[in-house]
């Protein structure tokens, strides 16, 4: 086996503050990589797809570890692990995030893999991204040029690319907790039932007005485009109506507007198009049922 060190690495740095981390990355330049949990980076270095000379570890920065409920939102720091999110008592309307986190890899992956790392890696199949898109999450970014926030669907700019500059890092994700009756759900399809990179994954958030019609909806799709995408047409199709099976089906079909899938070693584009409507409809129904409980 390749029982060797990642031989390119000459330095390992463990800054303790956010500004130290950014300063370290800036001064080390393009030959350095931020390291969160390492479940993606560790593999890339093993396979020699990346060969950074320096690793700047982010897991010693306390600011990145926060997980707390603030007014109307849950804030999750960039190096919070999937396991911590899974175990946290998140409000039920944020269920899609918990479900998504619980499907990332295995227990071993989730114990060290981080939400920031998952997003920054920007795989179009990232499990947490559709959930965060559906939940209307905001990503907080910090770097040498200061801080800014973007909606999570704008975080991804292309295949495996994000709006992060070379020394930017993801500080936190802020997820609104619905004021209205809200529910969410996540569905993932893979060849097997664990440790999977998805063939397709979807997340849906539904918020109901007092009269039971949909006041707000969020739908995120993964593995069906170069980036995680928001199914805007599908969301619009749900507004103003009670979310029954027909509406769910219609939303599922409308979600195809946002899909530009490809053929790859896991599945064909045609198959992805075929399953997305059903998976979306299923998630809509589950989210709506959950929201109904809080109306």
């Amino acid at each position, binding site marked *: *086996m*390749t*029982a*060797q*060190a*990642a*031989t*390119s*690495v*000459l*330095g*390992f740095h*463990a800054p303790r503050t956010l500004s130290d981390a950014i300063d370290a990355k800036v001064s080390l330049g393009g030959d350095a990589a931020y*390291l969160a949990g*390492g*479940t993606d980076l*560790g*593999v890339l*270095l*093993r*396979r020699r797809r990346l060969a950074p000379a320096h*690793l700047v*570890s982010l*897991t010693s920065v306390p600011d990145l570890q926060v997980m707390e409920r603030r007014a109307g939102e849950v804030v999750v720091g960039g190096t919070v692990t999937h*396991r911590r999110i899974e175990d946290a008592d998140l409000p039920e309307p944020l269920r899609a995030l918990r479900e998504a986190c619980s499907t990332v*890899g*295995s*227990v*071993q*992956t989730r*114990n*060290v893999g981080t939400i920031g790392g998952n997003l920054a890696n920007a795989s179009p199949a990232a499990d947490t991204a559709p959930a965060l898109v559906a939940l209307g999450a905001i990503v907080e970014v910090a770097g040498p040029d200061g801080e800014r926030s973007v909606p999570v669907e704008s975080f991804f700019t292309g295949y495996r690319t994000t709006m992060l500059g070379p020394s930017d890092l993801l500080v936190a994700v802020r997820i609104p907790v619905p004021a209205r009756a809200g529910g969410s759900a996540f569905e993932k399809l893979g060849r097997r*039932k*664990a*440790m999977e990179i998805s063939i397709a994954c979807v997340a849906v958030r539904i918020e109901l007005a007092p009269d039971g019609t949909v006041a707000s909806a969020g739908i995120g799709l993964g593995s069906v485009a170069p980036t995680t995408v928001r199914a805007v047409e599908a969301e619009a199709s749900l507004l103003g109506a009670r979310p029954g099976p027909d509406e769910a089906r219609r939303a599922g079909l409308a979600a195809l507007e946002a899909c530009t899938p490809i053929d790859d070693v896991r599945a064909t584009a045609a198959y992805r198009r075929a399953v997305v409507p059903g998976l979306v409809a299923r998630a809509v129904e589950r989210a709506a049922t959950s929201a109904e409980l809080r109306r």
Partner: protein
Amino acid sequence: MISVELRVNGSDYRLDVPPGAYLLDVLRDRLGLLGTKEACAEGECGACTVLLDGMAIDSCILFAAQANGREVTTVEGLSSPQHLSALQRAFARAGAVQCGFCTPGFLVAATELLERCAEPSEAEIRVGLAGNLCRCTGYTNIVAAVRAAAEEWEA
């Protein structure tokens, strides 16, 4: 070289290692703890599972530097030489060990599982061990072993 401090199976070590050294290789090649195995080198099979501050992780993709100042438990640390743990005895008795190459990883992952949840259902056992591949047993006796150990477990 960088200096890394580890507490492994209760013993403290300070080691000079290459900055890119993975924890698995440090455990095997530097500390002679050969019980933890490499089978895929990419965090997909769990044969390299160790506990890091009590959490099951794949040591083949964790840099030793990430474990600096932390506690590591390997299969060798699950018991004393005279006295196997409940899980180890259960695995041996229940036919959960065939070639045994996956066994250390399973034992460590199952240890975390039972520490978190003393009476797991079959579904919880399977989800908790989904990161560990076995090619020999078909998993049935592994689940039975964890069940049997759970009955004896002192959290």
